[in-house]
């Protein structure tokens, strides 16, 4: 086993091109890091490597032999193991049972040969010099050792290509050291290591080469010793959407503070404080998992707030659940529109009026005329394209579904709107429409919290920008002084 080559890999999801003609080579005995912004295509590439999904065109070559994996099993037989962020282990089984998962040694009488199983596992554990026992149950050991179990599984399969997806995201510093020792050992044994990570510091510690992807396109492959963090960041950024944003009508009137968050802590985020004014668009930038969604869920009462205060219009408010947040004038369009936003089996009308059921009811009975009037009005205002108000929301395009969710909060007279990735999965034309809509809402005096993983959007729309990393705010930027480089530096570097 000498090398693995990706050649002209293409993959398109419904309307989004995830990978465009990706080609590069990774050699045995080297750690090849894969970096890029959110949505650059790293995960898609890993899924193709592991046989989880199939590319539309292009191939993978192992030592010059063309391979097409139709299933994860085929990839495994070809010597590929991918270690994902989410553990692929069975928590109730022992370390040994997990390591030998699909190849448990069996005695002549068809029963599992536990002696042999544990002995073989102990040998691998010794090879890696780990303080765990083959008979430990996997859910009793720490996350770092659970990861080791997966690595040992790959090692036991004699996988020649081992890919890691954000392996350090839940590890402490000493655990990272342990992981790196193991990775170096695998490298010395002549395996190809593909290492996907957001953390540039680590990439300089562990990798020999770095491949940069951007918007599904291969940008560069550089030797780690000959590059710098700043250079990598420069490769990752620079998308030209400037004209789109220049042509939008902007709001110039920023009013009083409408929402202030003081020292908010939840299980996922710590010490979050920020302010937003009437008519302001406050962008929240950061990498996936930086805690932006979690921050907003805590403020909105969807997750438990451990400590901290929320002030609306200079009044301290207590928000115990989403319904009390709505009473205080908040509205949230969630990140995952299809599982937390729309109610798929119901009509456009019902999806909007859900936020004002109290208002449109008299003694518990729905006033259908009133409902119809309010909804019709808002549907026209926002230009929602739907055959009728009775149409099931699922039949609408992504952009129009998003507008329905906006309408939900406009009819409820929300004063502060939290938009979490509002343009995700929406085609370019509809995106511009949503941008203008967001700006128009700001002009009406709403305070808008705008979370997006597309830096160009954040910079193009926001009056001010908050950058988060690992559950904390790492910086505030004024809209006019923000650049992709500055944001990424705050989002990625310690």
């Amino acid at each position, binding site marked *: 086993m000498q090398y693995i080559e990706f050649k002209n890999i293409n993959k398109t999801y419904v309307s989004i091109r995830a990978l465009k003609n990706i080609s590069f080579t990774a050699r045995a005995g080297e750690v090849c890091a894969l970096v890029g912004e959110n949505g650059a295509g790293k995960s898609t590439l890993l899924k193709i490597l592991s046989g989880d999904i199939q590319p539309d065109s292009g191939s993978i070559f192992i030592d010059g032999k063309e391979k097409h994996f139709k299933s994860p099993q085929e990839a495994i037989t070809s010597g590929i193991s991918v270690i994902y962020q989410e553990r692929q282990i069975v928590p109730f089984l022992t370390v040994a049972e997990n390591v030998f998962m699909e190849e448990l040694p069996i005695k002549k009488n068809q029963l599992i040969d536990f002696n042999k199983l544990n002995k073989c596992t102990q040998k691998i554990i010794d090879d890696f010099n780990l303080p765990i026992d083959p008979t430990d149950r996997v859910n009793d050991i720490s996350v770092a050792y659970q990861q080791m179990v997966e690595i040992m599984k790959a090692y036991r399969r004699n996988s020649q290509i081992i890919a890691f997806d954000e392996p350090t995201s839940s590890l402490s510093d000493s655990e990272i050291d342990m992981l790196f020792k193991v990775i170096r050992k695998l490298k010395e044994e002549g395996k190809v290591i593909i290492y996907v990570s957001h953390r540039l510091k680590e990439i300089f510690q562990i990798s020999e080469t770095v491949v940069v992807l951007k918007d599904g396109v291969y940008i560069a492959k550089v030797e780690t010793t000959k590059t710098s963090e700043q250079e990598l960041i420069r490769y990752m950024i620079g998308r030209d959407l400037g004209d789109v944003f220049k042509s939008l009508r902007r709001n110039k009137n920023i009013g009083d503070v409408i929402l202030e968050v003081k020292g908010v802590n939840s299980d996922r985020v710590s010490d979050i404080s920020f302010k937003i004014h009437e008519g302001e668009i406050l962008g929240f930038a950061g990498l996936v998992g930086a805690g932006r969604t979690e921050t907003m869920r805590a403020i*909105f009462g*969807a997750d438990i707030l451990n400590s901290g205060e929320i002030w609306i219009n200079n009044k301290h408010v207590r928000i115990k*659940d*989403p*319904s009390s*947040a*709505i009473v205080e004038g908040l509205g*949230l369009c*969630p990140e995952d529109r299809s*599982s*937390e*936003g*729309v*109610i*798929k*089996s*119901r009509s456009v009308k*019902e999806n909007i009026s*859900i*936020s004002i*059921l*109290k208002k449109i*009811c008299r003694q*518990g*009975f*729905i006033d259908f005329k009133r409902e119809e009037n309010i909804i019709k009005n808002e549907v026209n205002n926002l230009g929602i394209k739907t055959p009728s108000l009775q149409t*099931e929301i*699922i039949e609408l395009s992504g952009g129009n579904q998003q507008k329905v969710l906006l309408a*939900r909060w406009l009819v*409820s007279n929300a004063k502060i709107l939290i938009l979490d990735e509002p343009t995700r999965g929406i085609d370019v034309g509809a995106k511009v429409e949503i941008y203008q809509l967001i700006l128009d809402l700001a002009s009406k005096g709403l305070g808008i919290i705008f979370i997006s993983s597309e830096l160009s959007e954040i910079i193009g729309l926001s009056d001010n920008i908050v950058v988060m990393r690992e559950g904390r705010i790492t910086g505030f930027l004024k809209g006019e002084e923000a650049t992709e480089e500055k944001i990424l530096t705050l989002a990625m570097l310690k």
Partner: protein
Amino acid sequence: MKKIIKKIQKNEQVSLIIILIAIVCVFTAIQPNYFSVRNLINILFSASIVGMVAFGETFLIIGGQIDLSPGAVAAFSGVLAAILLNAGVPMILTIFIVIAMAMLIGYLISLMINFLKMEPFIVTLAIMSVFTGLAFIIGGGRSIPITNKSFIYFGAGDIFGIPISIVIFAVIFVIFHIILTRTRFGRTVYMVGGNEAASRLAGINPKKIKTMLYLITPVMASIGGMILAGRMNSGQPTAQSHLMFGALTAAIVGGVRFGGGKGTLYGCLIGVLLLESFKNGIAVLNVQTFWQNVASGVLLIVALSADYARTARNK
């Protein structure tokens, strides 16, 4: 013609009515007595008891929930009512106590689902077992005779030839239909069943809705159980083992989507009538009654396949 067929395919209720009419026609052709007033009232009578529970299940299934316990609760209610009446408790008070007990069961179920995060399927399965057992225990395993005339009247009496239970059934249908289609509660049930997480983020309290939902089926089951006890002049612990299955089948056959968010009460009504006229037909033809079980099982599978096909198409 093509247009009409397409419309029929689109409107599930219309196709169900056609199937219902076909069933009635076929059975009448084989056995003309099937279409006699007496037999039709018989069908309606058995439909009325399964139907009350089916209406409750319709609410639950639309709300994304399920209750497997109504059969057991109905049997328990019948026995409990008989014991109370025999002990000299006045009828009104008896009915009141039995319904209150049913509400308590429902409330307990909702507590376990909301706060202990248990699966509705498992909780209600356990409750079913508990009350199947209790129905035997409190009555000593025997059927308990009822002598209270007015209680018996509720089960066996009639107004102008129409059994009281059918009248109660009709009234409940109208009330439930209005609740489901015209009230805030009804609308909220659809929303929570359609997407619980999204409903919560839109300001609805799903726990509150679930609590209310789980009060409905036990109450319906207890009313059904008492009517049946009245009709049989006794509280019988074995009375209602098929009730839950019939109610679920009727709701699913009537187009209520298993998984929540969709369905109508009149769909369920047609489902109940379809199921009962079919079962009755088999009985009238003197086929072994065990075939009723086989037939309703097959019907449930057919209905679930249709439900699956609809959902798959919508994706």
